[in-house]
């Protein structure tokens, strides 16, 4: 392909760092004039390249897809913007791809809006945009429209990104919390809390010897694989903020069923477990960015998990619980000693404890 070598290894930018007139972002880069045009031409287009975007109209003109449309939006304000395993750019693409495909939809198009703080390094923007291009390519989606605003120093924290996305839902797929019923199984696609702990341990003030990589990844092909073996998937969500506990509480409330988890079945890596122990955090409440929870009919759960395990993003997929008609609206956790307790909705962000 032109301008970029998507075939390059992970450590190289696919899109060569462009030579701009400035090495930091100026207010004028968002003002619609010559500097804006230069940014689009030299930074965004080479990384996002596709024929819809290349038309550079005020809107992307898209063919009407055949099926119901899934439409979603998400804003990304993560700090630090670079963390082990990813950055705010691939996070913004994968996050929206995942929100689309949790409906069973095939993601097609994304929009991207940047709000950049004046003085932000152009080289950092290039790294971010490059990872967005790579993540979009991996997920098979096209970034077809975008916008950039630059705000005064102090008006935002380095860079904020909004992505919206459109996907098409195949006619025979209908997902939603309303389809959850007692007897269903709860499937988790892999280890939990990797993203949240990666970001937390990358923050100033904490130094950990071992590096925890974020799990940021687009899950659309994993979802496709799951539907290949079963249509009895009732609901799916990616457990981002608030973690597994928050989304299962949402499921339990909106379906008015109980959800019972079995603690020993929930995979957590040793690094994450250790960091959580040190900081007094519960991994069930920590964010993930490349995992999904599916509620499926009991009879198909086994073959869905087997299929997921064949995909790199679902290698550690497993059944972690079941839907019950007891404790309606609540999630409970049965521990290794056979004692059942509530797994509550989080109040806000978990706070590290005094001691």
């Amino acid at each position: 392909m032109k301008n970029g070598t998507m075939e390059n290894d992970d450590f190289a930018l696919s899109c060569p760092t462009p030579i701009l007139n400035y090495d930091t972002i100026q207010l004028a880069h968002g003002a619609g004039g010559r500097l804006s045009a230069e940014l689009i031409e030299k930074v965004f287009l080479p990384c996002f390249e596709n024929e819809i975007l290349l038309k550079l109209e005020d809107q992307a003109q898209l063919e009407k897809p055949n099926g119901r449309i899934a439409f979603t939006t998400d804003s990304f304000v993560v700090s630090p913007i670079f963390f082990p395993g990813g950055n705010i750019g691939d996070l913004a693409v994968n996050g929206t791809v995942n929100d689309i495909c949790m409906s069973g939809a095939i993601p097609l198009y994304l929009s991207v809006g940047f709000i950049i703080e004046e003085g932000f390094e152009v080289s950092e923007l290039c790294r971010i945009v490059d990872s967005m291009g790579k993540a979009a390519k991996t997920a098979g989606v096209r970034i077809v429209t975008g916008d950039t605003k630059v705000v005064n120093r102090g008006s935002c924290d380095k860079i904020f990104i909004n992505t919206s996305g459109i996907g098409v839902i195949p006619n025979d797929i209908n997902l939603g919390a309303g389809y959850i019923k007692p007897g269903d199984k709860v499937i988790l696609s892999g280890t939990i809390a990797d993203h949240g702990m990666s970001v937390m341990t990358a923050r100033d003030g904490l130094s950990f010897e071992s590096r925890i990589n974020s799990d940021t990844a687009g899950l659309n092909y994993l979802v496709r694989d799951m539907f290949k073996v079963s249509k009895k998937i009732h609901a799916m969500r990616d457990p981002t903020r608030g973690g597994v506990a928050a989304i299962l509480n949402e499921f339990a409330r909106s379906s008015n069923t109980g959800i019972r988890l079995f603690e020993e079945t929930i995979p957590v890596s040793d690094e994450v477990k250790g960091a959580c122990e040190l900081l007094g955090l519960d991994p069930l409440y920590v964010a993930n960015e490349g995992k999904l929870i599916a509620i499926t009919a009991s009879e198909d759960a086994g073959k869905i998990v087997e299929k997921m395990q064949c995909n790199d993003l679902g290698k550690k997929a497993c059944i972690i619980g079941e839907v019950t008609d007891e404790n309606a609206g609540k999630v409970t956790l049965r521990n290794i000693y056979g004692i059942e307790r509530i797994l509550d909705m989080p109040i806000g962000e978990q706070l590290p404890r005094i001691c």
Partner: protein
Amino acid sequence: MKYIDEYRDPEKIKSILKEIETEVTRPWVIMEICGGQTHSIIKNGIDQLLPKNIELVHGPGCPVCVTPLELIDQALQIAARPDVIFTSFGDMLRVPGSNKDLFKVKSEGGDVRIVYSPLESLKIARENPDKEVVFFAVGFETTAPGNAMAVYQAAREHLKNFTELVSHVLVPPAIKALLSSPKNRVQGYLAAGHVCAVMGWSEYEPIAEQYKVPVVPTGFEPMDILSGILSVIRQLEKGEYKVDNQYARAVSKNGNEAAQKIINEVYEICDRKWRGIGVIPASGMCLKEKYADYDAGKKFGVSNIETHEPEVCISGIILQGLKKPIDCPAFGKACTPQHPLGATMVSSEGACAAYYRYQRFKTNI
């Protein structure tokens, strides 16, 4: 995972439970002092695994819970000042004062930052010489060495823009106060493992002797807690009362002497009010006169604040082991972790918060 899995092993747990069942012949009331232990007991359901005639009551060892309302209000006043960067351990930010919490102050423009260590606050002070940096020095003997070290370092560096708002509390005077109460029901204590790691277990010997009560320094994992309970039960059944260290991997007789040295250099013993309990003589620590320049309360003149606790709250009675959270009419109704009315609901380690979080479904709330 090493140092964790072996203390959570279900087979070992089963066998120690069996030992406890064999030993116990009568009803006993045991108090775990530390909020971390309460949290572990309720989260793991240890109270439900024990024989019915062993009752666990939850002690006052949650520093967030027992920090008096006046001090939270002082913190809020200082944090709201435009010249101040207010730094604190994370779990103090959600603790409500009389009408707001530190998160609210932050949203109103106060510069409130979560730190993981007081030495981080010191770094912020060095980097912001035109700001006053205040650290909210809360905690038991566990956090005292680090908090003392921050003041000691600041003095050595002649840092003029660092102060601490100090509300340190001590475990042994609290145990004595509980044992001296005519209403006391507690017959044995699990002492707080990490406090003992700093102070050693020898300071509990006079208490065990004077009040004829077993005191067992105990850790925080299920195995630790059950071993602690087993030791207390064995002693109670035999009529013995001694200090029996069940947390030997962290606690020694004399504790961490370097840590004690820095505490004694910077802080001195003072009377301290405990939220929900009241003033306990000689139960706290404050800055010594020679470090008075590092006292945020003095520097910002916020010492005389009067507060009123809601009358319905029974946290004081809960902290003495006389009642359980579910005995309170406000529990889970007027009083929740989002809108706590008193000490034991404000922190996740408080007894009420632990019951609310993990065992609420038993009360139909």
